[in-house]
């Protein structure tokens, strides 16, 4: 799909809809592997819920913030695309308030493939 660049008038900042830097702590990077328990395709941002088991076997639930669901739907991704039980690796930053929330800066599947592979390069096909 052709997407035109807003040259010189590109007023949109390099930030998400929300100031992620206000919500998440750059001094609390984290990387964890978890099992998907629920995916909320809600506005304005999607949330992926995962259960993470530590070395002692204790399970902690985390919420991972993603982007606009509209973008995903347009690329053919829906609730069935990330079924319960899928193992994902989250590489992001923890919430400033210390709760078990993080941004999904990079979310990959267990085999190392990026979750929702795609991109904005002209040669790439969305959703592939």
């Amino acid at each position: 799909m052709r997407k035109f660049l807003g040259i010189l008038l590109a007023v949109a900042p390099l930030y998400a809809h929300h100031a992620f830097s206000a919500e998440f702590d750059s001094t609390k990077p984290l990387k964890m592997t978890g099992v998907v328990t629920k995916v909320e395709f809600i506005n304005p941002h999607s949330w992926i819920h995962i259960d993470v088991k530590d070395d002692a076997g204790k399970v902690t639930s985390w919420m991972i913030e993603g982007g606009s669901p509209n973008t995903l739907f347009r690329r053919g991704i829906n609730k069935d695309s990330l079924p319960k039980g899928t193992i994902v690796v989250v590489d992001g930053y923890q919430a400033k308030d210390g709760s078990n929330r993080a941004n999904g800066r990079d979310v990959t599947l267990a085999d190392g493939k990026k979750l929702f592979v795609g991109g904005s390069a002209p040669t790439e096909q969305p959703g592939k």
Partner: protein
Amino acid sequence: MATKPLFTEAEAQVYEKETVARNNADVRVAADQDVGKAYNDFWWDRGNQVVPTLRTSLIIDPEDGHVPALSDYGKQVQAERANQRRLRGPADGPESRSLAERCIVWPTGGPPMMPSFYNNNYQFVQGPGYVGIYIEMIHDVRIIPTDGRSHVPSNIRLWLGDPVGHWEGETLVVETTNFTNDSPFNGSSKDMKLIEKFTRINKDVLMYEFTVNDPAFVRPWTAQIPMSSVEGPLYEYACTEGNYAMEGILAGARQGEK
């Protein structure tokens, strides 16, 4: 590119490649900036091609393709806005956060309507006496009367302004006034009189042109954006319904105060 109105094909390709690379959110950077990049590139839906007219700027008037300077009045409005902002802490409450974060209006949702980093789509619905424009980012519907009525009284100020439209041949012309000072576009003021023209130049392209007339700028200016057709449907981006992030931002600020 200020003195050059058009790209050559080769220049356009280089520009596209450089811009896509610069915007690539998959590239990790230092933590403090990295957290601002939010999530990887898949979630973003930025442009990746220059407009088919190969213009180097969307602004067609003035010729240098730049937004004109603010007038003294424009600077005064901007200073007042900044001063109002300074009276509040960064996250004292939801009112301290931006209109966009509060899901009220999006700075490029318009009018005038500009592409942003995702949800850059519009749906036009035309009926007797009205044209409706659904703006995907962030949820607004502009209802434009085309029955010849005049603007609402000047004491009524609206986030999206008050539009009235008429047809000039195949072109829908919309004049919007009654803005506020709180949702500026590139420094615009409540006194902006915006003229937008929509012309479907072929099956797939709706040419969108807007002219900003506003004493906040030293002169009027005009931009042109070809809108390309996409497959529907558009999903409702009812931003307020699951705005967990607002809670997260405020909780983060309270934590920081401890």
